[in-house]
């Protein structure tokens, strides 16, 4: 199987799983389709030589984050069905129209070479050293300070979640 075949198959998988996720009414099926889309994206990362990011995508996104989603779906009850009626009139048609506008803008930018003009694609695999070593070297030298700042973000998130999720003292259920 050549790289082109792999690209087209995984790109089609990612897009189809994403569209099916938006159209599916069952929340659990939505989560599973999102996992499929994310694994296809990880293969697209692999095709571009970003091995470390591909592994992170599967471990963090398709693993940890989606497990969290499934957990909350199970906690809140899987039988919550979405109503098909529209409370806001013509909300869906306006939304689809805005989506067509957005995709046509993006396609116009790509076709007009405004984004990609004058940029030559380099070799995806960094010669000599592996991708993980290169990313680690950049991450711990040039980007060391932002890397440390993310630890503050994670601490704030953990404390905030505890405050949000705990019930008041003496409050019933």
């Amino acid at each position, binding site marked *: 199987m050549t*790289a*082109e075949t792999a690209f087209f198959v995984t*790109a089609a998988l*990612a*897009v189809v799983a*994403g*569209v099916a*996720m*938006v159209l599916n009414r069952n*929340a659990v099926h*939505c989560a599973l389709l*999102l996992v499929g*889309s994310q694994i296809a*994206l990880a293969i697209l*990362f692999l*095709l*571009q030589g*970003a091995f470390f*990011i591909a592994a*992170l*995508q599967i471990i963090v*996104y398709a693993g940890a*984050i989606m497990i*969290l*989603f499934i957990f*909350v779906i199970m*906690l*809140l009850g899987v039988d*919550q069905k*979405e*109503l098909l009626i529209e*409370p806001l009139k013509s*909300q869906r048609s306006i*939304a*689809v129209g*805005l*989506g067509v506008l*957005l*995709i046509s803008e*993006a*396609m116009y930018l*790509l076709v007009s070479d405004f*984004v*990609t003009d004058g*940029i030559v*694609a*380099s070799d*995806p695999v960094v010669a000599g050293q592996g991708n993980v070593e290169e*990313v680690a070297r*950049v*991450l711990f030298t*040039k*980007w060391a300070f*932002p890397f440390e700042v*993310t630890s503050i*973000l*994670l601490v704030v*998130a953990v404390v905030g979640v505890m405050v*949000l*999720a705990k019930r008041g003292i003496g409050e019933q259920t």
Partner: protein
Amino acid sequence: MSIEPSWYLIVSAIMFTTGAVGVLIRRNILVMFMCIELMLNAVNLSFVTFDRMLGGLGGQVSVFFVLVVAAAEVVVGLAIILAIFRRRSSLDADQVNLLRW
């Protein structure tokens, strides 16, 4: 025939638009949140593609930070959804209308 970088960007644009339309048309808060994740994933694909086009690995480090922020965002968002569900017993976004005029 080789894989052009712009093909990856087209895939990324399609996935981002799918996520944006999903946020607008869905009313289940959890599924809206999943659509936001889809948009973040599409942006990650753009980051990796531009990183390959420009070199220097800055894009892949950006994807790393996007992952960290997404993890924090998911945890806080799900806690907020849990708090909403405790008060309203519903996952419908239209039920959360306290600030509507």
